[in-house]
């Protein structure tokens, strides 16, 4: 029976208090791992929302604003840009492809994006992954709609479903384009990006549903039916923004400068990566606060361990005296307590990690559904290992304090047992 064994049996003898402390440290371990996980995944899914796009062009505002409405479908464009500008720029010899984006309508809280079929060909996310269809195909008819995975899942839409688009963004009962219903022809595979929460229609469809509208309201007395509109010239006059892919990335800054100096109308071209980085910087303070809180929780749980051990010292005077009387040296007493904190911390790390994985498995579907954050079940990352390691070190160091006190105590108490 080694000293470690003795420590273990002594711990088992104090199951309840030890278990409570263990539980509180486990929770903080779980939190430390979880916060890092969320931070990492949010950043990851953040930066993977768009890839392979060299420039995003919109009306002149701020680059974060443009990024938010064009990529994240958040907020509204300050202004539209003309179809003419889009045509001119997309025909530039250095431009490989251009995806027009037209926003402004919604369907039950999900944004409707007007675009063309180049979107399904050129738009990439994550590690330069193209969009893939789970079912169906891109839109070809005027009133066809392709829906994102999340839209299909939460609204329970299937291929062939007929839906009505509302004017404006938001969930409230807005004026609906109920005279021109759409038919679901394609459902995309999940991407973990805002694409999942978007309905895609053709630019012509956006034009068609607004043909009898002006300045946001339906023109009184004018009603053009769905069949009639198909016969009409539906060339859009303006769009919200567009994405550009260049033949060579080297020309990115050159093209960006040209667009920003465009004479006919004030345009802004941004590099998505730079804008994403800037946007992430805005979150970094929240990120730091989150990490800070989890560190504080960890510290307070370890202080709990320290309190437990220090208060138990007095009750355990007899135990120490008995050990001294059978030949244990003060250094043994010191080790006994240090081992104790190492064992408790180590077990807490194990339990906390298990708890973390359990929480991950349980909450991942909910987080994906509510916040669009995809939490992948992965191995412990390097940063997480470092946190676990630090926790073990600090937890073990915590044991030195009561260990030293017990050491001093056993020197002065000797073998005299005080009840």
């Amino acid at each position, binding site marked *: *029976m080694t000293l470690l064994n003795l420590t273990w049996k*002594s711990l088992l003898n104090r199951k309840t208090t030890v278990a409570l402390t263990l539980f509180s440290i486990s929770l903080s371990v779980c939190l430390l791992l979880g916060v890092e996980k969320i931070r990492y995944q949010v950043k990851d899914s953040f930066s993977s929302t768009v890839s392979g796009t060299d420039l995003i062009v919109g009306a002149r505002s701020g680059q974060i604003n443009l990024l938010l409405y064009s990529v994240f479908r958040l907020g509204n464009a300050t202004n539209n840009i003309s179809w003419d500008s889009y045509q001119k720029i997309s025909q530039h010899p250095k431009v490989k492809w251009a995806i027009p984006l037209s926003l402004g309508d919604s369907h039950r809280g999900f944004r409707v994006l007007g675009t063309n079929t180049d979107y399904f060909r050129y738009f990439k996310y994550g590690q330069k992954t193209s969009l893939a269809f789970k079912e169906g195909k891109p839109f070809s008819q005027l009133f066809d709609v392709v829906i994102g995975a999340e839209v299909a899942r939460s609204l329970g839409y299937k291929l062939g479903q007929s839906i009505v688009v509302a004017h404006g963004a938001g969930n409230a009962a807005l004026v609906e384009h109920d005279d021109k219903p759409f038919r679901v022809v394609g459902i995309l595979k999940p991407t973990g990006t805002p694409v999942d929460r978007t309905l895609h229609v053709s630019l012509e469809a956006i034009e068609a549903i607004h043909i009898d509208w002006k300045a946001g309201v339906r023109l009184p007395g004018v009603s053009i039916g769905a069949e009639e509109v198909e016969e009409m010239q539906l060339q859009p006059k303006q769009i919200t923004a567009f994405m550009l892919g260049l033949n060579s990335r080297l020309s990115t800054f050159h093209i960006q400068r040209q667009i920003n100096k465009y004479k006919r109308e004030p345009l802004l071209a941004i590099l998505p990566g730079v804008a994403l980085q800037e946007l992430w910087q805005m979150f970094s303070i929240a990120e730091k606060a989150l990490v800070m809180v989890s560190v504080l929780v960890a510290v307070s749980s370890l202080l709990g361990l320290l309190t437990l051990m220090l208060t138990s010292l007095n009750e355990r005077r007899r135990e120490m005296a*008995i050990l001294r009387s*059978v*030949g244990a040296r003060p250094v043994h007493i010191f080790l006994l307590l240090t081992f104790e904190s190492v064992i408790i911390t180590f077990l807490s790390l194990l339990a906390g990690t298990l708890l973390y994985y359990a929480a991950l498995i349980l909450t991942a579907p909910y987080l994906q559904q509510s916040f669009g954050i995809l939490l992948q079940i992965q191995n412990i990352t390097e940063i997480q290992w470092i946190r676990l390691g630090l926790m073990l070190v600090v937890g073990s160091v915590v044991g030195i304090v009561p260990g030293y006190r017990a050491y001093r105590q056993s*020197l002065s108490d000797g*073998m005299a047992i005080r009840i």
Partner: protein
Amino acid sequence: MPEITVDTAVEITDLRFSWAPGKPILSVEKFQVPSSESVFIRGPSGSGKSTLLNLLGGVIKPDSGSIKLLGQDITGLKASQVDHFRADHTGYIFQQFNLLPYLSVIENILLPCQFSKKRSLKAQEMFQTPEMGALYLLQRMGFTESLINAKSVLELSTGQQQRVAAARALLGAPELVVADEPTSALDSDHRDQFIELILEQCRAQSSTLLFVSHDTSLEKHFDHRISLKPSQAGGYKL
């Protein structure tokens, strides 16, 4: 390390001890115990018994004088050396609650052999393994198998617990066995029986027994008797 063979197990000379200058607690002019014999040290409470035991254990140091145990002056040893010396050569039995509640009967008895290689080796010499030694001593103390296998030492009666403590103090045949009021929690019938058991084992393994108590009715069992008495200089003297 050669076996220590001396005729005097304990020898205290001109010892003085005080917690504060001018307030003597204990003084011992000359105190000798021959090897393998038993001594009854009588002292009322507050007479410096614990001080004497702490001095003999090397936990505290005298202001002056020497304490020789088995020919070794422990006052000159460093704390860690004293610790080793005590673990190797002394078995202790205290008043009550001598056992660790989270260890089994056998585990409790084996504790000294965990901390002293010397005692462990001696137990092996005598009984093959320390465990066998523990079982032998328990048997001598009148333990049945079911008692030995008791789930917790807390299931045992006080008298049984004290016998486990005695077996623990005796295992590995330490040269010195110090008993501090070990019978105070026992009723009178069990007291004499308990003392006889310890004495018998001490004789069998040539251990010197120092038995401290305030109860004079017990002194008849011992080879030597001595009292702690108030001293004119203050405190008590042996």
